[in-house]
């Protein structure tokens, strides 16, 4: 259960005040898959970092699992866009997955089992002895996802995780994350700039405006629960939703002046 | 206030704090002032010496030995390095010899230098050139090896002669490495110049420090040490700036990192 109340964030950079987030209020229910889209520079990443406790808000609150967020909360995992930089290059894949569990003082046998299960869940059970840099980009992101799910979080945040991989790999990863979400029942907040991806993945899409950011629209996605790259994307309802969101974003880009710094 | 100004002020505060600490320690009796004269006394001695000729003679002697040694070492290293580096066969054959000779500490030659030359510049130059040469050679070899094979082949296909290739392909690629090598060689050269002056007896700051130390002029020793340090700092700044300039023209990403 994730609640954002009146979130407001202002940066002071080089003497200029930049309002990354104007005012955001929304809630994500337990086990819901919510996507966040918006024009470039609309503070999507800032929002995610505030929720993750990595960035203090200027005003407003974030509540995760009934507790107020003042720092990185327990039971919450983040998957970053830059998979290459978020994995430890000096640890093998399985050690990477196990590290947060070690920090949580989990006994070795249990750690090992969880790591193996997580790696199998993302299809990497054979790669556990490799180093991350020996793997392709898509596989590295899978490792990051495995690490996140081995952590057994209640809430999973993903910050444009598939933006840096090629289209084919992206499609595979999208299906992977949906299946993982269905198996685990985590609350998932997925930030992306790719509208198609947001509609394909989410049960609900939150559309942000340009800076100063607020919620432009909160669309429920009434597509069937069983989704598939071919049929779902060919579904006329998919196209409708997609077009709706696209025009919302276009309008918000025209309405506001160009976004102030690269603060996405 | 701006980032830079903030850093500068903090740095100055650090220096001031350091000076104050060294002033306080002997005055409060934490350390005997025979071993560590207070900063004020050291600076006083420094300024006193700066008014007379001998200090400046020593400085110029040190700088002279250092400069000559550095120039000789760098010239030899660049020429040899370019030749060895561009001919793969030469490189392969000399690799083991270089790897063997490189770690031989330059100080091994001190005894020989003393015997051969006595307390004159030549003896120290021997040690300085030896050490600085290897530092520079290694960097030159890295620089030549880093040349993009595509660029090299392109130059060849346009029928550029070996000299032209060196000028347009090898040299620009190797430039940052040369700059780094220069800085490292200069650092080592200064250390060995002063070492030579201390042990071989060549005139310069090292020799003066020895004299001051054996005559018990502790404040003088510290003052001269400060001068030597300032020399080192100046050299470091100079070569770091040169290195940064060379790097700023260079498109590729470098890996050799500052000491």
């Amino acid at each position, binding site marked *: 259960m994730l609640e954002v109340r009146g979130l407001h964030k202002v940066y002071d950079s080089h003497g200029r005040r930049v309002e990354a987030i104007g005012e955001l209020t929304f809630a994500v229910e337990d086990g819901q898959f919510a996507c966040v889209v918006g024009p470039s520079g609309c503070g999507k990443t800032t929002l995610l970092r505030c929720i993750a406790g990595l960035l203090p808000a200027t005003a407003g609150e974030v509540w995760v699992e009934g507790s107020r967020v003042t720092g990185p909360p327990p039971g919450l995992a983040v998957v970053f866009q830059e998979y290459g930089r978020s994995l430890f290059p000096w640890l093998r894949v399985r050690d990477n997955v196990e590290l947060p569990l070690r920090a949580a003082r989990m006994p070795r046998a249990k750690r090992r089992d969880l790591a193996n299960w997580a790696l199998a869940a993302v299809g990497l059970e054979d790669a556990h002895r490799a180093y991350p840099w020996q793997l392709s980009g898509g596989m590295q992101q899978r490792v990051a996802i495995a690490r996140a799910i081995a952590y057994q979080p209640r809430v999973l945040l993903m910050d444009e995780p598939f933006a840096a991989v090629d289209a084919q790999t992206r499609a595979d990863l999208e299906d992977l994350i949906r299946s993982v979400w269905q198996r685990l029942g985590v609350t998932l907040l997925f930030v992306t700039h790719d509208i198609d991806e947001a509609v394909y993945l989410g049960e609900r899409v939150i559309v942000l405006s340009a800076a100063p950011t607020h919620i432009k629209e909160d669309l429920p996605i009434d597509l069937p629960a069983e989704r598939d790259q071919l049929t779902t994307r060919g579904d006329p309802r998919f196209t409708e939703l997609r077009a709706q969101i696209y025009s919302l974003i276009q309008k918000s880009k025209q309405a506001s002046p160009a976004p102030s710094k690269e603060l996405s | 206030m701006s980032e830079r100004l903030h850093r500068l002020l903090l740095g100055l505060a650090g220096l001031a704090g350091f000076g104050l600490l060294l002033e306080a320690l002997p005055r409060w009796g934490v350390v005997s002032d025979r071993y560590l004269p207070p900063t004020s006394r050291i600076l006083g001695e420094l300024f006193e010496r700066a008014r007379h000729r001998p200090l400046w003679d020593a400085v110029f002697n040190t700088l002279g030995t250092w400069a000559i040694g550095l120039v000789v070492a760098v010239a030899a290293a660049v020429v040899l390095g370019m030749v060895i580096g561009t001919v793969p066969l030469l490189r392969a054959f000399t690799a083991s010899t270089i790897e*063997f000779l490189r770690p031989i500490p330059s100080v091994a030659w001190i005894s020989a230098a003393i015997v051969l030359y006595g307390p004159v510049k030549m003896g120290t130059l021997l040690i300085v050139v030896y050490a600085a040469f290897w530092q520079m050679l290694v960097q030159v070899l890295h620089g030549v090896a880093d040349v993009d094979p595509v660029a090299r082949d392109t130059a060849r296909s346009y029928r550029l002669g070996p000299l032209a290739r060196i000028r347009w392909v090898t040299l620009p690629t190797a430039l940052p490495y040369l700059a780094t090598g220069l800085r490292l060689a200069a650092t080592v050269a200064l250390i060995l110049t002063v070492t030579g002056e201390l042990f071989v007896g060549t005139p310069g700051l090292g020799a003066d420090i020895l004299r001051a130390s054996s005559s018990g002029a502790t404040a003088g020793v510290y003052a001269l040490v400060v001068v030597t340090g*300032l020399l080192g700092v100046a050299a470091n700044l100079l070569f770091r700036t040169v290195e940064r300039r060379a790097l700023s023209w260079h498109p590729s990403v470098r890996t050799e990192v500052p000491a």
Partner: protein
Amino acid sequence: MRVLGWLLWRLVLIFALPAVLVALWWQLSADSSHFLFRPLSEIWEAFRETWDRQRLVEDVLPSLNRLARGYALSLVLGIGLGVLVGSSRTLRSLLEPVLEFLRAIPPPVLIPLIALFAGLGDARRVVIIIAGCVWPILLNTVEGVRAVDEVLADTCRSYRIRGGRRLYHLVLRSASPQIMTGARQALAIGIILMVIGELQGTQDGIGHTIEQFQTSFQYAQMWSGVILLGLLGVALSLLFRLADQWVLRWYHGLRATEKER
């Protein structure tokens, strides 16, 4: 068969030039009556005579012992302080000019000063080594700690990896390539200072022995000592290479992969 050929070729590459040079040296110096440049044959004789078990134990071992102690302490001091300074922007700005100044002082110059504080014993020699070795380690550690990847740091924060675990898994391992660079430079400096510290006024040590030979005109023996020093330098350098390969296995693999891309 191919492997054998390749192996042979590599052996030729490694030993050809050195063999030629040594042979040349042997020949050219054979008839030397120069007082300083003795024939290589004579030096070789002197080498075998001089560096016997007794001298190894009485001179070489103490020298190496001092080097080991000085180097180890430099590592502890350098890495410890380096992590501290590198982790705090304020500390870095505060201390940078002071450290730059202190490290620019050529360590041999400090010897008379160190003699004041540390007397004439073993401690003095170890302090001299530390005075030179600590700087490259310290400064490189600061650089390495400073350059820890932000995304990796955020990952640690979000997974609540803190304290000692964070220090080891994030900071130290991330900075390890840089620290190794500093350690390598420190080793070269350490050997130099080990020798220098033993000149003038010691009871034992390699440097002391070489100096003794020099002052008593036993030049063949002196050169044998120089050769020993060279061999020592090479051996330590090789040892360091091995350590580097082991500690930075992941790093070398990573760089190799990047180069291919």
